[in-house]
């Protein structure tokens, strides 16, 4: 069980989906990410938290190859993925969503989903000329897409432009679209940002259901209630480094984390130095 791991930064796990070793990234003189060692257990929900500017999103971009690492290595299921292009990571079972939701506005909801399917023969220009080559795969993709729309309660929006959806619906759409790639790891960048509270519960339910299907979920989040509610393991970043990891309960009472969020002197009286 994940709860049995020692709550120390860089602790090794039995079945790591991702292993990060000495990964660093600088922008000019600023070291944005400097992670010594981190393992992400597979089949559980891991939250990545930290104060603003901690480097969470940059770290996320490095993991998903949307940004290139300066040094170090990242292993996905034991295979080094440094230098692998972002679009190839989806084929290796890792898919991400974005903090600012990227619904493809001028495409219908169903087309958004159908796009997500991998290895479509109709995406080859020459094969696309002959409908019989790809039509049966297209039908199979469409039925999978319809099933996902049903699961995420978006069936009524099926043939609408994605641009007409509300913020929360777009989050659902993005998650459903990511699932079209049938990923082993889902990387969700602030899945609850801009979602109204009524929809939050249903979104949380969906995230939990991903884990229950055996998928690994990593998400960046600010809302501590959300983190406590759904995550099995929490990784805390500050100033580009991993400063703590553990179960949500451990993290809650971890002095290092409290100091990172609130400052070392947060519980002292404000006073003049004499």
């Amino acid at each position, binding site marked *: 069980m994940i709860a049995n791991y020692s709550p120390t930064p860089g602790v090794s796990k039995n079945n790591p989906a991702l292993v990060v070793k000495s990964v660093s990234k600088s922008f000019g003189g600023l070291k944005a990410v400097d992670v010594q060692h981190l393992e992400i257990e597979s089949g559980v929900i891991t939250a990545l938290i930290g104060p603003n500017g901690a480097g969470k999103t940059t770290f996320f971009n490095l993991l998903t190859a*949307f940004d290139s690492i300066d040094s170090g290595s990242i292993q996905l299921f034991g295979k080094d993925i440094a230098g692998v292009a972002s679009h190839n990571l989806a084929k290796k079972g890792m898919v991400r969503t974005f903090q600012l939701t*990227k619904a493809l*506005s001028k*495409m219908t909801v169903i087309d958004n989903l159908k796009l997500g399917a*991998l290895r479509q023969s109709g*995406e080859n*220009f020459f094969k696309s*000329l002959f409908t019989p080559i*790809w039509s049966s795969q297209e039908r199979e993709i469409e039925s999978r897409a319809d099933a996902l729309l049903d699961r995420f309660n978006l069936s009524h929006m099926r043939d609408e*432009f994605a641009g007409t959806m509300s913020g929360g619906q777009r989050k659902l759409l993005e998650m459903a679209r990511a699932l079209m790639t049938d990923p082993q790891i889902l990387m969700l960048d602030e899945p609850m940002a801009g979602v109204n509270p009524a929809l939050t519960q249903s979104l949380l339910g969906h995230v939990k259901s991903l884990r229950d299907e055996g998928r690994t979920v990593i998400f960046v989040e600010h809302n501590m209630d959300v983190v406590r509610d759904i995550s099995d393991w929490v990784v805390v970043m500050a100033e580009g480094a991993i400063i703590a990891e553990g179960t949500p309960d451990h993290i809650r009472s971890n002095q290092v984390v409290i100091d990172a969020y609130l400052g070392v002197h947060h519980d002292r009286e404000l006073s003049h130095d004499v």
Partner: protein
Amino acid sequence: MDWGFIFERTFSTMIGPEVVIYALAALGLNIHFGYTGLLNFGHVAFMAAGAYGLGVSVYYFHWNFWIGLGMAMVYSIVLALILGIPTLRLRADYLGLVTIAASETIRITVRSRVMKPITGGAEGISEFSKPFYDLSPFDLGKFYKFGPFRYLGRDLWVLVVGWTLLILLTLMVQQVMRAPWGRALRAIREDEDAARSLGKNAYAFKIQSLLFGGAIGAVAGVVQVVQKGSIQADGFNPVITFTIWMILIIGGPARPWSPIAGSMIYWSLIIFVENVLRQLSPQTRETLESTIKLSDINIGQMRYIFVGLGLLLLARYRPQGIFGSREEMALDDR
């Protein structure tokens, strides 16, 4: 005023050679801009690549006309790769800068004296299209008239071949855009990062789009120079690119049949306005000449003013173009 003549000219233009050539060019640009979101401001360069691929092969290498057609495609492919490989990894605007610069560089280079032995320089190349006209079932010098249409046999042969090509290529574009290939292009147009996160190699798709649209642009260039019977470097100037853009906007981007509709509207408006102005009564002409200096020469310019006015009205009342959907366009603002 001879309305019969005006309408004969307008109708003949409506399915005439210019419409075919510009519809083909706009069809290529539609793949670039309409479906993929590539800002190609030098589309005329692909027409030039087609024209000189044919012309240089016949004029300089003394190859046969049909090999020249193959070379037209090769030139367009080379041009697309040169333009695309360095720029398509960058933001969209870089392609815009590079294409407009490249199209002018090509025009100025091929018309230079140094290049004269190869490209014919400023005088250009002529007498390369005989093998094409040899196949004509029509008497080249004879006028053919059917309904309101009237064409020289030579043009009629170009039209038969041109429209066949145009319709086949339009059907081909319609087919690939309905297929998953087209869906991936539209996704890249909407958000490249989203497409990449879903396993689409955006760079490869954009190169393919540039190649495909560029090849159709080259077909347009070939049809144009074969119809004219000569290749003139200065014919491939930026105004042509922007005319093609106008045609695409009139028709509505990302719709397969809009290049044809846009081209028909653009050219029939031009020819209609020109002929009406030329046919005004002598007194009216005299008044216009003394008040707003509307001489015979200025009529050519005047028709562009009317097209401009037409575009303004379009932008005001139908910004999505003829085939576009207003609902889709409104999504831009969100």
